[in-house]
């Protein structure tokens, strides 16, 4: 008897849990435009490169505006762009321009560039090379050069470590470091953390990482004698960098607008952004459009 009632209770609990879970999916943002007390929910979804920045900014923002709940999720740039164009998320984070992604209607999205991030070619620390010409880099990544001795290193096989083709880091590296050349097949890892681990541990390995992922365990390579530093990026000497975009569908209002504005304040730009290894957009002396054209500010 006890068993039977216990079973019924368990079954009812399961059903209840199911309904609660189903209910969660439905709850979307309810932003109201009160000027005094901000309230509502903001969901920001997308690029894992922006995620740490958005998370820290949202924590501080919520401490200042207790009525607002900001939820930051990863998923990838493509997910961010899709979700925001479908209206499923309020903010879509992406480390590439919406125009660069096929299948996205960029015209209905509004771009908010919150920071800049540089990307560097990284090699196993045991490799005695500090500089590669752009042509050497292209030859290495397209598989024309397969041994480090061809570029002045020891006689050792080159091991390519790529991100997947859909990754924003790979897209940026391919466009600005390799001049659009198609990479040869190599090891592929879907997270930058794993790329760093593999490059660190595998003899002869070369890969690429956002500067925010550098922790001294792998060695960066200068391209044509230019080091991947902040100074070289803001002056346009080092070309491999990307904007971090927060896209909204149409002009944002209420809590979403307030959060995006907060991302641009000194609270975020002067502290969190440099701490995490990003570059504030205001420091840039050049601007670049979706087609890759660079102009002085």
């Amino acid at each position, binding site marked *: 008897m006890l068993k039977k009632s216990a079973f019924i209770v368990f079954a009812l609990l399961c059903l209840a849990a199911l309904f609660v879970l189903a209910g969660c999916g439905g709850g979307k943002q309810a932003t109201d435009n009160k000027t005094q007390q901000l309230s509502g929910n903001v969901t920001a979804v997308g690029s894992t490169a922006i995620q740490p920045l958005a998370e820290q900014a949202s924590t501080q923002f919520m401490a200042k505006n207790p009525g607002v709940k900001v939820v930051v999720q*990863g998923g*990838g*740039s*493509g997910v961010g762009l899709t979700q925001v164009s479908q209206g499923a998320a309020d903010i879509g984070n992406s480390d590439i321009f919406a125009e660069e992604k096929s299948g996205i209607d960029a015209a209905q999205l509004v771009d908010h560039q919150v920071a800049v991030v540089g990307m560097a070619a990284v090699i196993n620390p045991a490799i005695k090379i500090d500089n590669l010409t752009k042509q050497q880099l292209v030859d290495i990544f397209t598989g024309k050069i397969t041994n480090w001795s061809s570029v002045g290193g020891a006689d050792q096989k080159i*091991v390519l470590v790529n991100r*997947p083709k*859909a990754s924003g880091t790979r897209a940026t590296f391919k466009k600005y470091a390799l001049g659009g050349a*198609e990479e040869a097949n190599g090891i*592929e890892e*879907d997270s930058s953390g794993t790329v760093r681990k593999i490059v660190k541990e595998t003899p002869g390995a070369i890969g690429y990482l956002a500067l925010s992922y550098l922790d001294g365990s792998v060695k960066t390579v200068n391209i044509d004698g230019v080091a991947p530093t902040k100074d070289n990026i803001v002056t346009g000497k080092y070309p491999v960098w990307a904007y971090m975009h927060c896209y909204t569908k149409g002009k944002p209002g209420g809590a979403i607008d307030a959060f995006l504005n907060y991302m641009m304040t000194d609270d975020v730009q002067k502290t969190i952004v440099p701490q995490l290894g990003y570059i504030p957009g205001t420091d840039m002396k050049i601007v670049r459009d979706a087609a890759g054209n660079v102009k002085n500010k």
Partner: protein
Amino acid sequence: MRKILLHRALKLSGSEKLGRILTTGAAAIAIISTITIVFFISTKGLSTFLVDGISIKDFLFSTHWLPDRLPEDGGPQVGVLAFLLGSIVVSMLAVLLSAPLSVACAVFIAEIAPNWGQRVLQPAIEILAGIPSVVYGYIGLSVLVPFIRNNIGGLGFSVLAGFLVLTVMILPTIVSISTDSLRALPGEWKEAAYALGSTRWQAIRLVLLPAARSGLMTGIVLGLARAFGEALAVQMVIGNTRKIPGSILDPVITLTSAITMDMGNTPMGSLWNNSLWSMGLLLLMMSCFFILVIRFISLKGGAVR
């Protein structure tokens, strides 16, 4: 009096009804989720061929994975042959190694040392089944990959690392099903074999294993299905190189890891994303095939008995 009877009847029918509603509801949820998931994967997966006009032949038998290439350069191309072969090679090798190992374990648990085996070995294997796949992958990445790199050769990320991890992962599945099917055999068969003068090993080899073969096969096919569908642990150790491997020490990529690799960054509805769903559909069809095989085996097994 009539009132009490009526009350009793109502109460009885009430609890009967509740039970019926609960079980029917649970069954309905299971059936509805299966149907909707299959429907969703099928519509998404088929749109690669129906909407984007990729031919099934190009999809299955081409190794050119260039979903981002512009049409003027001859793209986009979404050939998944390398991923499919990778999946097949890694899971087949895992089953080849795991099946004899598991069946031997099952024989040990069920026949050689029923007491000790049941008290020690079975819980050990159940724990093995409970280890999350990310932990398997992490151990593989931190222990197996460097070991292969330093002692055997190559990068460490290899077919070898992948199938060794899978071998351990599918072991519990095959062992538990094989043990059950060995235990289900009537005790008289073993006794009859002994009575005819066979040794213990002869009884196991000539009577028990052949008699339990449909159960053993079911276990092996389920293990194969698990190996085929495993994503995370394998992805961490195989190196994910989109090429058909030339040796057991070469890195490789499987269907599952090709899906997880790209799914986050491809927009819904694009050819790229649709072709990932087509790979999912392919995996689904594979597991349907495995289920059919199991059904077929158990039908045949029934006829033998």
